[in-house]
């Protein structure tokens, strides 16, 4: 999987799983302001990315991301490092009540 495949897959997840218009999904798009994604969506995005790429992602890292480009860079970085990060022991999730 090369870098453009990674980006295409991430964008496809955002479009299909989160029902966004493809035109909205650009690297500079803000996840919260432009795409209206929230903390519940962040958890689900981690699940979708992990399934798509067969990697483990620290949910806390994803929660700090601001833009689509941040996700691109993070996942590409994971692939380029050749070392998949271990899962966080306690992934930050929406508090249950």
């Amino acid at each position, binding site marked *: 999987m090369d870098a453009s495949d990674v980006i295409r897959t991430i964008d496809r997840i955002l479009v299909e799983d*989160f029902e966004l218009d493809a035109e909205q999904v650009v690297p500079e798009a803000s996840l919260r302001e432009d795409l209206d994604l929230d*903390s519940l*969506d962040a*958890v689900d995005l981690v*699940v979708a990315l*992990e399934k798509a790429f067969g990697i483990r992602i620290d949910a806390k890292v994803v929660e700090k991301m601001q833009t689509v480009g941040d996700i691109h860079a993070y996942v590409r970085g994971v692939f380029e490092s050749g070392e998949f990060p271990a899962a966080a022991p306690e992934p930050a999730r*929406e508090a249950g009540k």
Partner: protein
Amino acid sequence: MARGSAAITGMGVRSPLGGTAGELFDALLAGRSGVRTFDDWDRIADLGTRVGAPVPDFDPRRIPRKHRRTMGRCAMFGVVAAEDAARAAGLADGLLRSGRVAAAIGSTVGSTAAEEAFWREVIETGSARGIRSTHFLQVMSHTVAANVAMYLGLSGPMIATNAACASSNQAIGAGLGLVRNGDADAVLAGGADELHVMAALVFDVMGGASASFNDRPEATPRPFDRDRDGIVVGEGAGILVIEDEAHARARGASPIARVLGYGATSDAVNMAHPAPEGMARAVRLALEDAGVAPEDVDWVCAHATGTPVGDAAEAEALYGIFGDRVPVSSLKGHLGHTLGACGGIEAVAAVEAMRRGVVPGTRNLEHPDVAPLWLPSEPVERPVEVVVSTNFAFGGVNTAVVLGRAEG
């Protein structure tokens, strides 16, 4: 002695035979069936029943994703029916958010499909990592009430009634109570449920699911008929706006019908076996609560699901109260058993019966073999001022709602 009625100012429905009250009632009068065969249930060995009554052509995309992500199919049905009901009642956004509008809505459980997906993920992967954040919000037993409240912005009390097939009637009873007590000006009340093979399977293993008509789905279920062989599971939602009548009139809304009374009992005898005494007590309590005599009732919309034992017990209970003077019919022959939604859908049909002056007959009833009630199999035209609607559930739950015509 009557304890006071509440107005019904709006209603919404999703059913195997229609997404509006008018569409549903036309189908009931025409004697249509919403039952079809599910060939893919063959994947489950030793499951006898292959019939169900789905809501056809349901497009959930009308619900925005941010709301829809916390909804299984049952909550989606509940939300669209509640939205229709609120709109029909003319409940403005400011009123919905005033803290004076409540949700009293039930379902058997939450979304069974979501629960299946949850455990499939955990069991197949042996890990918790594939679980989405919104899974539980679809599974939880109050998912329909919570999603309706969230979607419409309801900020009054929230009550989730989860007593299987009696969920809707319990919700209507709770809604009446909230209005009578002054705890809410209006209540979105009713129930919703989704068709999943689990419910069919549960009835099947207990010998209560229809399994003899898999090749003729429209011939089952057969309430009160000698050839009845069990339940056909359906799905849908039925939601009423139950409102304080003075409040409704003050905002210029007219009642389309009234909730006159509610009665409920528990058998405390047997978890699965119906007891006519408990059923009859619930109906008598409801009549007393409504201040209505049995001879004033124009239609009994019976629970009668098409099981040999349940229909006979209900017929015995109703015969002791109404004799053969009141038409008694069940909508399950058309719609299957929509479980937690049935009381809500039946209430919508009852309002429509009062509006039109005609009572639907029981579909697939050819040879009654129960107590000698008046059991029409075809529509009966007559003025309909008062309707009693019964629902019973596993666990010895017995409920009856009394509805009245708006002008009554």
